[in-house]
């Protein structure tokens, strides 16, 4: 009797969430792999085209550029993580004004892509905030057409990620630092450690795992960049990214091609995870 009601509960509680999971995560991934070898247009029977979609993605300069753009977003992860780490270290303590600073520092994390895009359109415009500040500082020679100049547009837009996402890394580092027992710091203080030594020998080793997770998030984040270049530039002026391309191909009913691109994005993320797993394993040995 009891066993029967137990089974009933397990089945009842798991059924819907599992069905959801299968339909919206696993079936699409498998279907994508199949569709990526076809030229399906969204209607009719898919026609097998072999690896043509992949071949196009890997050889057409237009599509290669799109993957190169992602590298900018990955490059800015370095200053982003550094900033987040420094802030997490200095905020980790008790001092006057702590909650005000914590409040300010988390603002960008709470704003959505449309808001951030608007803010940075104003920021990078020709008569925008950045150029106005440069003028004000007497650095008028350095003013640029940040969003029109083909050389500058991608680094400019990518640098927005620092502003937008450092807060997430910051909170994760902060959370990790909070798990360090205070006795460790006290012992270090007794031994006459400087703050820098303390960071080097206590803080960094303790948050290594979180650091790896953050790097992983940066890799998978930079291959999935969508909102900022889409909203600010509509993917134009050389700011195309793989996800914008997926969206556009879907709109043009090039489902087969979009699927191939989706599969590639998926594999790059998997690769990043694999590399990270490798590092963490080595670390444990």
């Amino acid at each position, binding site marked *: 009797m009891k066993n029967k*009601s137990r089974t009933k*509960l397990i089945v009842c509680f798991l059924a819907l969430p*599992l069905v959801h999971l299968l339909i919206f995560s696993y079936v*699409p991934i498998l279907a994508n792999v199949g569709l990526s070898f076809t030229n399906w247009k969204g209607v009719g029977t898919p026609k097998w085209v072999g690896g043509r979609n992949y071949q196009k993605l890997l050889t057409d300069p237009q599509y290669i550029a799109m993957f190169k753009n992602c590298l900018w977003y990955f490059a800015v992860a370095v200053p982003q993580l550094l900033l987040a780490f420094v802030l997490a270290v200095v*905020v980790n303590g008790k001092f006057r004004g702590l909650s005000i600073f914590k409040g300010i520092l988390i603002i960008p994390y709470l704003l959505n892509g449309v808001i951030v895009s*608007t*803010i940075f359109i*104003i920021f990078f415009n020709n*008569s925008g905030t950045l150029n106005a500040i440069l003028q004000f500082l007497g650095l008028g020679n350095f003013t640029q057409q940040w969003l029109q100049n083909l050389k500058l547009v991608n680094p400019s837009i990518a640098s927005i990620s620092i502003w937008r996402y450092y807060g997430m890394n910051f909170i994760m580092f902060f959370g990790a630092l909070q798990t360090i027992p205070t006795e460790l710091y006290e012992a270090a203080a007794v031994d006459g450690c400087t703050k820098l030594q303390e960071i080097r020998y206590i803080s960094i080793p303790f948050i290594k795992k979180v650091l790896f997770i953050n790097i992983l998030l940066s890799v998978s984040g930079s291959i999935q960049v969508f909102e900022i270049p889409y909203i600010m530039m509509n993917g134009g002026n050389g700011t195309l990214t793989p996800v914008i391309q997926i969206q556009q191909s879907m709109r043009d009913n090039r*489902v087969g091609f979009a699927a191939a691109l989706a599969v590639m994005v998926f594999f790059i993320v998997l690769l990043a995870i694999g590399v990270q797993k490798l590092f963490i394993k080595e670390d444990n040995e």
Partner: protein
Amino acid sequence: MIRESRFYRIVRYVILVLASLFVIIPLVPLVFMAFKTGREYTETSVLAPPANWMNFYNFSYAIRVGELGKALFHTVIILGISLAVQILFTCMVSYVLHRFDFRGKKVVKTLFTLTMFIPAVTTQTVVFRMMYAAGLVNSMWSVVILYSGVGIIGIYIMLNLLDSISKELDEAALIDGAGYFYIFWKIVFPLLKPACTTLLILNGIGLYNDFYIPNLYLNKEVQTFTVALYKFFGSMSTPFEIVAAAILIGIVPIGIVFLCLQKYIYYSLAGAVKS
């Protein structure tokens, strides 16, 4: 408590003030702009404050033309339903995974964990077709359904809390003749409240800010606040000072939630990191 050197304390404030400026400076012109007249916008520098801080014309125009009220209403409905379903599902799945041993348990857990690594956008090629076939595109139900999935982070937060809820409670109730459903609903579920709050905050912020899904599935009739702002922003005919006002309005709900829940937000996020 450890004494910190005076030098370090000064360095700390310098770093924090600089970082705060870094955050605030890009926001300032937006606030200025929202109060400027169209003429002022074209004629003054972005760094110049508006002549009249009581000029609310841009705000009223944005609310009227952008139908922001309607969008906010739809956002509340969509988020309300999705979050309720999602959190309830997360509690149910976590309860089963934590309290029972059964065949296939490992598989279930792995399936949930692996989704963390599936970028949501890569599934949309196929999911969009399914939604289209089901006639749900342009209906808010497509978004609600997609938002109702159980995430692994939520499960971890719940499992963490379940560790601290004594199993003896369940067993005692079982001996008293209570059914498993009754135990979950009357004993375990109420105790999961703190984790539910955490999830509500984390996923509430995430879903409110989501752009990809509602932009893909919703049209002008039903749209979320974020997409409404985007439509505003994307139409060339909207003057930019109006867009700025609309954006400021968009920040208000987040600001209110944030001010009320600041303590919990840090706690939740840090807690999520630990699990």
